[in-house]
């Protein structure tokens, strides 16, 4: 039965993808059914931006559904999955506030049910709790913002908001922006509202994690774009500046946290936070350029952000599916129990490598193209006159560069420790390859990563259409031929196909040279050189924690390690040590420094207020009287 549901969602996903791509190229439509949803009815509208996100959601769903057909961990929760993907598809299409919020809430609830997959585990329960609280806090902000906007524009329909945006009062504009941005940012996983992400994504089964990381958090970006560019119109500089800075901070916090993590799926979750930061850098730059009046430059930044959104869906879903295959084969997500899996799971390893190479932005894969575009957008700040804004861009550039380097390091660790060298546990030594549909799904996503990279000259014009539709200008900032596209007259140009061809030729040329030089063809097999030691075991290899040690030292100010050491000596003499316990746990600093104090304060306030609930009937009557008096006096 579950397999049937997944097959249906896979086909529906492909159909949604086709419809979405159609929408990008101008095949818009609207749907209005009066009764289904209160306050305005079910209203759906397709426009290029909605089409892009619908295509993203649809194609990611197709891949994860295909994977789920053969995945043992997807046996339960098929109906919740169905509700989840339906809601994911409805959110970008929603054309009025109630449809949007209803779809949003169904999406959150369905994913919450799916997160509670192994509900007997205390960690999973906590993850689900944090997720539920944060997503509903976000919903509250969204509700407040949308109702505020509706009150001031007199309508709940998005088309009306778009039309009324230029006429809004600045105070309302800012208030709406803050509320809606908070709600959407918490869904996207922007620091400091990200604490639910590294808890919920690893807890959910892998096909759901892939969808959550690949599609759901992107809808937060979708919302930010809608608010910043359409509903609240062009805003002041601090909107773009804040998003840019939050993007840099998210990117750095995300990747630094991922670097020291030993849980494969939590590492990927933190990496999602990092990529959302990169996307936000693009969005923030776009808003800043719009403010400065340079629409053409804003288009470049927006194209970069949207392209990275699509790319991230592709490679993050791929990585999560691969992690799911590994976790299922070895029974654990802990990288320190993996190792040598490239020989036991060759397909999974190859697909995961494509994902790792893509996310590390290595040419000519898709991650490289979108990061290249993001860099070019930031470098365009040379054309903007204000020095304060230029400083923001310079910080953004440096932050993005550091993130790029750290991402490569992180995924060397993720791929290298998990798949290479010797197995570190029995489970890893006896791991089995993923089932057929799982492999097909991963291969499909890997092919998508390659295609999005090599086909950049086709994708960039399509995404430019979307950007143009949002910025309202007929911009064609990225000149293209079939092979190359360039930014500005001679500022920069890129040809992924030529690079791929050159890299391919470069791979073959040394081989040819070696044959010509008469090098011996066969290699002798031996054991790893270990300075003459007798036996090689997995204990001699680097662990995930050891690999990240240089970073732990360099970024000590960020990690703030607290080391605990307990020495238990023999009762008769302290010189004979029985046991030493050493712990250097990763600290969740945002929870410790931000959330716990706020929650403690909140609980303190509620304790004070609780005094009102005295249980005394006379007091309650007194409250009713006071309320009546106030209502009569203050009309």
């Amino acid at each position: 039965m579950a397999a049937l549901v997944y097959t249906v969602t896979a086909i529906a996903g492909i159909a949604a993808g086709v419809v979405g791509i159609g929408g990008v190229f101008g095949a818009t439509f609207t749907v209005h059914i009066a009764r289904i949803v209160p306050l305005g009815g079910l209203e759906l509208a397709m426009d290029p931006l909605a089409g892009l996100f619908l295509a993203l959601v649809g194609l990611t769903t197709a891949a994860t559904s295909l994977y789920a057909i053969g995945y043992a961990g997807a046996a339960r929760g098929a109906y919740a999955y169905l509700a989840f993907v339906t809601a994911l598809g409805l959110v970008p299409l929603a054309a009025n506030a109630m449809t949007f919020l209803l779809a949003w809430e169904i999406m959150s609830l369905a994913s919450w049910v799916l997160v509670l997959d192994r509900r007997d585990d205390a960690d999973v329960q906590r993850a689900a709790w944090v997720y539920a609280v944060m997503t509903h806090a976000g919903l509250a902000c969204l509700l407040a913002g949308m109702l505020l906007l509706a009150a001031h524009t007199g309508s709940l329909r998005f088309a009306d908001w778009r039309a009324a945006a230029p006429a809004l009062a600045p105070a309302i504009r800012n208030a709406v922006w803050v509320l809606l941005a908070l709600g959407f940012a918490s869904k996207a996983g922007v620091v400091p509202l990200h604490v639910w992400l590294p808890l919920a994504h690893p807890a959910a089964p892998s096909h759901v994690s892939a969808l959550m990381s690949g599609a759901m958090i992107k809808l937060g970006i979708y919302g930010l774009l809608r608010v910043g560019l359409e509903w609240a119109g062009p805003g002041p500089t601090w909107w773009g500046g804040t998003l840019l800075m939050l993007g840099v901070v998210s990117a750095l916090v995300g990747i630094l946290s991922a670097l020291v993590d030993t849980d494969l799926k939590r590492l990927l979750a933190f990496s999602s936070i990092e990529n959302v930061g990169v996307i936000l850098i693009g969005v923030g730059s776009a808003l800043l350029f719009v403010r400065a009046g340079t629409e053409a430059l804003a288009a470049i930044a927006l194209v970069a952000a949207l392209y990275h959104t699509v790319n991230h869906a592709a490679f993050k879903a791929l990585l999560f599916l691969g992690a799911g295959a590994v976790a299922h084969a070895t029974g654990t997500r802990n990288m320190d129990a993996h190792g040598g899996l490239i020989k036991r799971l060759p397909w999974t390893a190859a697909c995961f490598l494509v994902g790792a190479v893509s996310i590390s932005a290595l040419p000519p894969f898709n991650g490289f193209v979108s990061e290249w575009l993001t860099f070019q957008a930031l470098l365009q700040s040379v054309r903007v006159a204000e020095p304060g804004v230029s400083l923001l861009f310079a910080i953004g550039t440096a932050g993005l560069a550091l993130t790029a380097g750290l991402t490569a390091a992180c995924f060397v660790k993720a791929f290298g420790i998990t798949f290479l060298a010797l197995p570190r546990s029995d489970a890893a030594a006896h791991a089995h390859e993923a089932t057929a549909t799982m492999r097909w799904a991963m291969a499909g996503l890997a092919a998508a990563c390659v295609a999005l990279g090599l086909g950049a000259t086709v994708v960039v014009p399509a995404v430019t259409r979307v950007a143009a539709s949002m910025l309202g200008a007929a911009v064609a900032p990225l000149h293209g031929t079939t092979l190359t596209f360039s930014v500005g007259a001679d500022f920069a140009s890129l040809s992924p196909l030529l690079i791929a061809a050159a890299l391919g030729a470069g791979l073959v040329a040394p081989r040819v040279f070696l044959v010509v030089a008469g090098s011996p063809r066969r290699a002798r097999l031996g054991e790893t050189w270990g300075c003459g030691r007798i036996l090689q075991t997995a204990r001699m290899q680097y662990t995930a924690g050891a690999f990240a040690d240089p970073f732990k030292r360099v970024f000590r100010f960020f990690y703030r390690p607290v080391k605990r050491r307990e020495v238990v000596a023999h009762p008769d003499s302290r010189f004979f040590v029985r046991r030493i316990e050493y712990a250097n746990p990763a600290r969740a600093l945002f929870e410790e420094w931000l959330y716990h104090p706020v929650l403690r304060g909140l609980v303190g306030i509620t304790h004070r207020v609780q005094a009102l609930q005295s249980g005394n009937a006379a007091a309650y009557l007194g409250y009713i009287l006071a309320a009546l008096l106030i209502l009569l006096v203050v009309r």
Partner: protein
Amino acid sequence: MIRQLRLALRTGIVTEAVAPDENLEVLGGRLGEAARRLFGRSLHIRQVDAGSCNGCELEISGLTGPHYDLERFGLHFVASPRHADCLLVTGPVTRNMAEALRRTWEATPDPKLVIAAGDCARDGGLFAGSYAVVGGVEAVLPVDAIIPGCPPSPRALLAGLLAAIGRRAADGAR
């Protein structure tokens, strides 16, 4: 920094010419002319201490200094036997080091040379017959050349290495 540079320029090159040394025992036959041709211009050496007292190591470390400078002949010490063409073994090969020595040899790619440096490496030297000693490198590995001495001077080591790869000592006169 300037002072160091000025001192270097004032001192100049102090490398000495190499005198021919007759004391080398080359166990030929194993070493074909082809191998000599391969290593004539470039020999990477991995030094292995198989239980030596380190007297030979001190002399060997003199080879990398300015006076003896083995690098001018294309000889070079490397850290990994995978990078090496030649194992320069010192010490009487203690029982504890026999297996490690053998594994080092197996880790070295073909074609390769084994040169035993010092009296201990030749036949156990001072320690021959001890319970802890296997007895010369030949007991463990096929040896191509032996440089005798206790310890052999850097001059003898250099002449021996050059002879093992078929270079005439006169090459180093420049």
